[in-house]
């Protein structure tokens, strides 16, 4: 057996920073798509953010979307092509700030789409500004004194919020830091696609990720911060639906 690049992932080297979680997330999604054999009917929606070039890395059909509107674009795609497998891939700003309206309503309508939310507590592409998910005390270019709830509010707990909606069938938060967590994330991604294929409803997998350059640390230190800093605010686990093993 050889472990190498999944078929659905293009050979192109990525533009992501050294140690960035996007690379891992892309690989896991492609591994699951290959495992399920659904590349031929997968339609994906790229975000605005570091992963705006996702279509240069995913070797299946992908469309650009306006910032935050990926769940709406995905709605249009899935409603018109119910036998396709549709997913969005979004970051903090795209999903939780400008796209807050779209994600809540797509979940509320129970759209049969999968959403992969890369939470790195920052706006990577534009230089590390504060995101809705930025931690209390975290210093960013737009919260230079450190995030203070009285001034900048609190970190937004997306999977918790969306799990309150009846339309959400499955919501889980994972982390892309340790090998064990990455294996668990792959299983969660698989569960999300299974949920869509079974027509159970909307699903979201939130993936805590390092942003070494955005956080101003080394890749190794950034990955350590995911466990030591992020999980206290963003606990891992299944918030809606079942964590039983994915169907074969």
């Amino acid at each position, binding site marked *: 057996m050889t472990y190498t690049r999944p078929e659905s992932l293009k050979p192109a080297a*990525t533009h992501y920073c*050294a140690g960035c979680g996007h690379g891992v997330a892309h690989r896991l999604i492609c591994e699951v798509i290959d495992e399920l054999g659904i590349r031929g009917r997968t339609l994906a929606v790229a975000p605005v953010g570091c992963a705006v070039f996702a279509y240069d890395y995913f070797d299946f059909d992908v469309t650009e979307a306006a910032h935050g509107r990926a769940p709406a674009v995905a709605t249009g795609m899935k409603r018109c092509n119910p036998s396709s497998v549709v997913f969005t891939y979004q970051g903090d700003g795209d999903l939780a700030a400008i796209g807050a309206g779209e994600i809540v309503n797509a979940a509320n309508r129970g759209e049969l789409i999968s959403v992969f939310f890369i939470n790195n507590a920052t706006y990577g592409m534009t230089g590390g500004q504060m995101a809705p998910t930025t931690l209390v005390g975290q210093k960013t270019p737009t919260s230079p004194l450190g995030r203070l709830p009285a001034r900048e509010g609190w970190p937004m707990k997306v999977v918790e919020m969306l799990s309150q909606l009846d339309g959400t069938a499955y919501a889980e938060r994972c982390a892309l830091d340790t090998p064990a967590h*990455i294996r668990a994330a792959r299983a969660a991604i698989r569960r999300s696609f299974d949920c869509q294929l079974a027509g159970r409803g909307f699903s979201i997998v939130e993936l805590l990720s390092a942003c070494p350059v955005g956080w101003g640390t080394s890749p190794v230190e950034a990955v350590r911060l995911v466990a030591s800093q992020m999980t206290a605010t963003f606990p891992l686990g299944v918030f809606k639906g079942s964590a039983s093993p994915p169907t074969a």
Partner: protein
Amino acid sequence: MATVVIDVLRCKGCGLCIEVCPRKMLVRAGQISGRGVYPVEAADPASCTGCLQCVLVCPDVAITIADAGTPRQARKRKQ
């Protein structure tokens, strides 16, 4: 048992794999690569157990492991 191959031009030198290798067999190369970073290299490729920890954490699919057996066997080999 297993062979590990690191694509020097894909490796961005993040060092995440060095942290997770149970044999501590991955090290930073002494020379800058064509990419302009100090990439990771396998100091003792023959000692690779095929545990797949490095493959899991590598964001750049820079590592290929061959003859790693089943995932269960790989987990068992992780020391």
